[in-house]
């Protein structure tokens, strides 16, 4: 915080002016890193341009494609929930740029620790979108092998995974490897003790971890102001590592800033906090009713900053994509929606004995005993049925 000089203290407010511009504290980060304006214009940024300088038109189209397909997947999941095929869905609508930009910044050997909304990051890691749906359908409590894509299981207990990410990163450092870790969490999660502790550990052990906070402005009904009185990215300073706020609806800026942070981590320079400033366009989950706590105008104000439209304008204006590309993508998107629908509808209920599977790696006599009792109980119904 700035220390005001005691001499010549000026009145806080002079008549007529409501507020004087707050002076930025020395060493503070620029407010919002942006490479694409909401109107889709490319703007220069001395510090971060270098991280997207060699990006090809094909890669740019790829980012757009990722966002469109992720949104389509998300919309499909939302409607599958409405049709009773899923018990719950946590939509990422509006957060595509934050997730695709950061997800595409990761290397194959990096490790990702998501929360429960990172469907776009999962997409970037090559996790089959259908796998994400099992837990929301209620057929499993995870649904994929974290090691096959270096993408950890979704974590529902808020903030827990930031410590796992930090520990994993500490392990990478011990191994002398140059991979990095990225941990996702929300603005609400920033209040949890676990998150504060992960900041402490990562700073103390100089762990190669990037904390990627998607500030979507809400934690269910609580606005970010109910979690913090300073911009979240500024928290990092108190722990001794850099924090940066990026326009979370700007996929290029998210890519550039995350690359920068991951490279710092690889070089052994320790953790970074990235705050992607974005917006949750829909409800918290399909069980939530945002009309109870937020105004429609707020959503409308964010709609014009839509991450996908912004990228499309840029691609069109810079002649990096033609009508054919968009038409093809539309067809691809339809096909993805159809496939997701089919896969979910065909997803079988788990075998009853799954309850007793994988409770322990080494086995356990109590579980064996209860499984046997369960089997006998189930069999008693089968016998009755046959008798009839």
């Amino acid at each position, binding site marked *: 915080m700035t220390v005001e000089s005691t001499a010549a203290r000026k009145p806080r407010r002079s008549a007529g002016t409501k507020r004087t511009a707050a002076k930025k504290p020395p060493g503070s980060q620029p407010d919002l890193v942006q490479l694409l304006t909401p109107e889709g214009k490319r703007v220069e940024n001395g510090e971060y341009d270098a991280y997207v300088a060699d990006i090809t038109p094909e890669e740019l189209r790829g980012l757009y494609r990722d966002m469109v397909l992720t949104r389509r997947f998300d919309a499909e999941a939302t409607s599958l929930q409405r049709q009773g095929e899923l018990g719950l869905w946590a939509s990422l609508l509006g957060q595509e740029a934050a997730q695709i930009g950061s997800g595409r910044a990761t290397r194959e050997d990096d490790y990702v620790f998501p929360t429960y909304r990172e469907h776009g990051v999962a997409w970037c890691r090559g996790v089959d979108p259908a796998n994400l749906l099992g837990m929301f359908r209620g057929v499993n409590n995870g649904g994929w092998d974290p090691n096959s894509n270096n993408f950890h299981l979704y974590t529902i207990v808020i903030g827990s995974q930031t410590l796992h990410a930090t520990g994993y990163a500490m392990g990478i450092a011990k191994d002398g490897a140059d991979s990095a870790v990225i941990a996702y969490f929300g603005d609400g999660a920033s209040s949890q003790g676990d998150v504060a502790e992960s900041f402490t550990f990562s700073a103390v052990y100089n762990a190669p971890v990037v904390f990627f906070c998607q500030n979507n402005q809400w934690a269910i*009904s609580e606005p970010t102001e109910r979690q913090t009185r300073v911009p979240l990215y500024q928290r990092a300073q108190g722990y001794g590592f850099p924090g940066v706020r990026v326009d979370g609806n700007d996929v290029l800026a998210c890519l550039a800033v995350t690359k920068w942070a991951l490279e710092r981590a690889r070089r052994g320079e320790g953790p970074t906090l990235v705050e992607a400033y974005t917006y949750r366009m829909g409800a918290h989950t399909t069980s939530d009713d945002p009309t109870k706590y937020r105004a429609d105008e707020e959503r409308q104000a964010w709609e014009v900053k839509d991450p996908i439209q912004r990228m499309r304008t840029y691609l069109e204006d810079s002649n990096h994509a033609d009508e054919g590309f968009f038409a093809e993508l539309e067809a691809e998107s339809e096909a993805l929606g159809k496939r997701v629908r089919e896969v979910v509808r065909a997803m079988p209920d788990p075998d009853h004995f799954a309850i007793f599977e994988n409770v322990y790696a080494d086995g356990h006599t109590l579980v064996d005993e209860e499984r046997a009792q*369960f089997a006998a109980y189930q069999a008693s119904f089968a016998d009755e049925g046959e008798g009839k």
Partner: protein
Amino acid sequence: MTAEKMALAKAINESLRTALDADPKVLIMGEDVGKLGGVFRVTDGLQKDFGEDRVIDTPLAESGIVGTAIGLALRGYRPVVEIQFDGFVFPAYDQIVTQLAKMHARALGKIKLPVVIRIPYGGGIGAVEHHSESPEALFAHVAGLKVVSPSNASDAYWMMQQAILSDDPVIFFEPKRRYWDKSEVNREAIPGPLHKARVVREGTDLTLAAYGPMVKVCQEAAAAAQEEGKSLEVVDLRSMSPIDFDSIQASVEKTRRLVVVHEAPVFLGTGAEIAARITERCFYHLEAPVLRVGGYHAPYPPARLEDEYLPGLDRVLDTVDRSLAY
């Protein structure tokens, strides 16, 4: 005023309203309890009527919620905090177990900790993981905490009043799958003591003991058994710490058989304690060992398997038959 029919969630809401009205020191705290009225709407409308100073939306931090509630209680307030779901109480478990439970004893009885911790618990609503658990034994095991759970709207209304008036910390487990069940609430009745069990159905052949969400299952089981000519008594424990062993004993001395039913895992659960005590107290009365029905020694399963995991009518009746076969 006579009795009104209301849902269990509404009864808690009315009870909190009554408490806020009666005592300016009562506070409601938790995530989303204000404008949203909680994810189950249990605190609906309270912030509107009592203001943000009395009904406090907190940061998303359970250790913070309970830890600050302890401080507020030390300062003379009576906080009623909400933990959003059973599985999210654990960030606060340290504060509850190492601090809240023990402070009265450590201060030689000179300070009181009238904190109520409301936890919607249990399964049966098709939720994702950490939203369906029954961790009551983990709290009942800790000296210094009282642990209760109502099974119907009337108890919910009265037990919440009593919990708030208690000078001890109370862990108040709310059976979330019964939130929408309606029953009569008489606000002028004089309630029984908070920790007294109640016979909710009389019977002669066997006692079913349960609490919270399982009381209804046991009542249904008793009704089904009646058709087969078996007379089952159902005891609603209402409190898991302390447990009213006298009432269970009285019932078992009559019926000579006991089956304890809860959603939580059987292993080292509330039922284990009851089985041990009742065996001690009623050894010569018992015609069969005390049997238990509950969850398995496995993580709470995904929603599509919860019907196999949770005790239902068939499992209760199957166990009743086993007991009667001795």
